[in-house]
């Protein structure tokens, strides 16, 4: 999509009709919040559990001017530190072999740390981690907050890992720039890797993270510790390829933020409930046909 300002482009969060409906009420639409407060809320408190090691290795300091100012509407927001479950590490389930979460986030070029923030663009958690029996009020709200923070912590670590790998192999930010959308992206050459998350940091159980960086997007699977990594890796490549193809992510005018249905449609078929599938080429084609029939491109 273009550089359209809020309200002037068709792809605002509310389209024109929605705005008309809004304006039709008694109230006059209030002006948007000034940036500093929004920036802080967008950034929020640091995750309680980002690994110090990665933080130490990551280059540069991510800070935005103005981020230290208090938000204008701080009293409306529940900004509570996320507490970890007292039962962390409780033997919950059988030694699992499934995907815990899938996410897509943006990747900034290593040299461009100051431009924007690490954003999770889409995330899907398959089932909930065993919920702590928290007697305090707003337990549900805190669970959700914790889940979001966990995902963001993963995204940030993946971004660091990807940047470090890019730097190490001498690939500059040019590689992350938009290529011509006609060329297929060479996924087998895209930066990729895996790392572990220890129990309690940030998930209750130990997890393995497999990631793939394609241009300015990071695709990530958070796995149970004993999953078949070869299968996870090829599934992640397959998902990335499908998302690029079916959402036409390489065309500058498209945006995955408003196309959750397609992402969900792809996940429901190729990673149902976080189950990795052994799909040979013909099965993939069969599912893709089914997908194209439901969502004509």
């Amino acid at each position: 999509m273009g550089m359209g300002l809020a309200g002037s482009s068709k792809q605002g969060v509310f389209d024109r009709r929605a705005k008309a409906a809004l304006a039709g009420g008694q109230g006059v639409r209030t002006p948007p919040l000034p940036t500093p407060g929004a920036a802080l809320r967008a950034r929020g408190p640091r995750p309680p559990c980002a690994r110090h090691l990665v933080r130490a290795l990551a280059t540069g300091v991510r800070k935005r001017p103005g981020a230290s100012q208090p938000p204008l509407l701080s009293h409306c927001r529940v900004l509570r530190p996320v507490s970890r479950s007292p039962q962390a590490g409780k033997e919950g389930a059988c030694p699992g072999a499934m995907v815990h979460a899938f996410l897509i986030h943006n990747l900034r070029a290593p040299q461009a740390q100051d431009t924007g923030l690490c954003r999770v663009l889409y995330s899907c958690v398959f089932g909930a981690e065993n919920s702590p029996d928290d007697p305090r009020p707003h337990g549900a709200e805190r669970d959700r907050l914790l889940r979001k923070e966990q995902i963001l912590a993963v995204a940030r670590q993946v971004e660091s890992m990807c940047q470090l790998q890019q730097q190490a192999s001498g690939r500059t930010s040019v590689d992350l720039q938009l290529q011509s959308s006609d060329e297929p992206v060479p996924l087998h050459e895209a930066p990729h890797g895996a790392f572990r998350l220890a129990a309690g940091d940030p998930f209750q159980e130990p997890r393995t993270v497999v990631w793939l960086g394609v241009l300015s997007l990071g695709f990530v699977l958070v796995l149970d510790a004993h999953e078949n990594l070869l299968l996870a890796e090829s599934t992640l490549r397959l998902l990335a390829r499908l998302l690029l193809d079916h959402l036409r992510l390489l065309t500058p005018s498209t945006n995955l933020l408003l196309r959750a249905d397609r992402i969900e449609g792809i996940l429901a078929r190729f990673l149902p409930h976080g189950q990795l599938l052994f799909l040979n080429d013909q099965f993939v084609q069969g599912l893709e046909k089914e997908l194209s029939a439901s969502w004509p491109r």
Partner: protein
Amino acid sequence: MFTAGAESLLHQARDIRDEELKKFCSRVVNLLQKDELGPDAVDALQRLFLIVSATKYKRKLEDTCVHLLQATLCSPKCPEQLQLLCASILRETSPRDDLTLSCDHIQSTRQLSLVASVLLAQGDPKGEVRSVGQRVFRILESRQPEGPSPRHLLPVVSKITHLAPHTLHEDQTNQLSKRLVDWLRYASVQQGVAHTSGGFFSTPRARQPGPVTEVDGAVATDFFTVLSTGQHFTEDQWLNVQAFSMLRAWLLHSDPEGPSAPDADDRSELEGSTLSVLSAGSTAGRLLPPRERLREKAFEYCQRLAEQSTRRALRKGDSDLQKACLVEAVLVLDVLCRQDPSFLYRTLSCLKALHARLCGDPARVRTLLPIAQFFLNHGEAAAVDSEAVLRHLLTRTPSEFFHSPMLAFELTCFCRDNLPLFGRNLDILKRSFPNLFKLLAWNSPPLTAEFVALLPSLVDADTAVEVLHALLDLPCLTAALDLQLRLSPATSERPLWDPSLKIPSCLEASRDPQFQGLLQYLLRATASGTTERLGPLHRLLQPLASCARVVQCAQAVPTLLEAFFSAVTQFADGALTKQLALLLLERSDSLFQVPQYEAHVHRVLSSRFLALCALHPSLVVELAKELLEFVGSVSGIQGRGAMLASVVWAIGEYLSVSWDRRCTVEQINRFFEALEAVLFEVTQSRPSAALPRCPPQVVTVLMTTLTKLASRSQDLIPRVSLFLSKMRTPAQSPAPSSTSCEEDAGAVRTRAAELLTLLKMPSVAQFVLTPSTEVSEPRYHRDANTALPLALRTVSRLVEKETGLLPG
């Protein structure tokens, strides 16, 4: 792509206020109440999803809206696109306590799967997992041929057994095991029929589909598996895929404890004949209980996959799948053998053949890991030595594939996770540390944490010295690996190194036989028991020191050194400690010159040197000659300040008869003279003002140590007093440059004055500067007449009196 547009969209979504959202919800409600749900509804739901998912804080959705989202999700006529959106919005806002969703009346399995995804995201406060499980099993049990396909339900079962393993009853577990056998072993071997939806020419005439084929195009020779292929697939073939995908988790779920007591009767005929030919024979004819039957069929399936993976796949995707299937097959066989040892005999022959075949296949190197895992788990029971398998894995694989991030990660995790299983093979692991360090040197960011956990097991009294050298040379190893890759014939289209860095001189010089030998030593596969001085190699590889990979590795070394020393101090005896302390002295000035590396490493080495001395105080006397050399060789103080300070401090602390009887007055005098010379050099004679000043910490430590030594050999007191009084007068610097400089000088002067005062009462000085070990005993602090408080009072009175007399 992530563009500025997306960023602004996210901001808008976050900035939407509650009343705006309320109005938007009522719009959504209006749209969902229509009979025909059109693109408007899709569009609105897409936006609603963005609004609720863009923030981590709670978004209040109107009750009617939540209600309608649930109703739409459960409505049988609703298009999939809308159902997916409703489910994702409900999931995104969960856990929520106002759900009325239930899966009890849903017929479509696809829809049930979606509803289940919402319910399972709630974290089970109301027993959602159990109720979903019961509903899913009711459908699975119904077994109507024309009924809803269970294909979409198997992943739900997987998830449920994962979230709450005790949800299912014994008979349900058996029931599903039976059906899994059917799907795994008896799926149709004919291809499915294409579902052409009413094209003009497509009459529903029964065109007989052909048989399924193997991945190389040949007609299938045996039953259908995930590696069988065709144009179209039948429903049971889809179920075959689902069944195999969940097989390992299901086997673990249905019998988590391995061979258990209640089954003893069922298996009585197999007892005592674990490895006999009888049990290894076909059991197909007998009627086995469901769990055993599933194991039997799973075994056959895995064997068939192993056979199918020898075929040459026509498509790239299938060739990748073959590798993943091999890994899974070995993992399943491992589970089977753990649960029922009677499989061991049959599995071993299969896996030995597989291992022999895969050893020579670089494209399938990662499949060696589960095989090695299998031999580690069962080697002992099967009386097969896993040594050869491990040796191959640890000595060959890392040197050839260190540049593959996934292999490096998997191999490191393999070593770390299996530490308790290595047993007497642990020695192989320890000896191959130079090889494992290659993985670390090339992939330090993701692997540092793993190696911190692994190091304690790699280090023992025999390897400690070599490991420490290797750790200090780790960035140099990274550079050497880079050079090695550049020298070897290209393996991939894209270089694995940083192509922007050109090092023609390195490439040229590396052909020199002198360097060849050193490079080979640095790139050795196993511990050699010797150490080489790598100085020339450091100079050769210097052009690579600035490359990002080397710098990243250098940043990881301090953490690894800390882990090393915490491990080594657990078992180090006097002799090893002495070796290590010597090594620290020796290596402190022979490190690969990476920016910041020396300073960071010195910080660790200096504190660790003091810790070693504290553990074995006689080190100072035993290493007197080397310490004197070290102190005497400090020409350029810059860079080594931290190291010098801790060495000098250790001398002052432990060069005393009270720590070691062998300490003599001559020794003290010799150290005194050497340190005096150093102090003179760093304070009085500064050849040029351009050189950085000696840090005040080093100066004060030198002064203190000289005073300590003088208090032990009192003939030296006049000399040190003279020196200290010189220090007390302001340094004759040409221009008092900055305030921090002035503060430093002030600190030095104060310390000089204190020490001088102390020395005026030699017996008190000795008492304060060389306290006996009794000081740590409680008696010393209780007895007011003989003890420390008295001494302290005396000293402070003296010091106060003296400072009062000082001019200015």
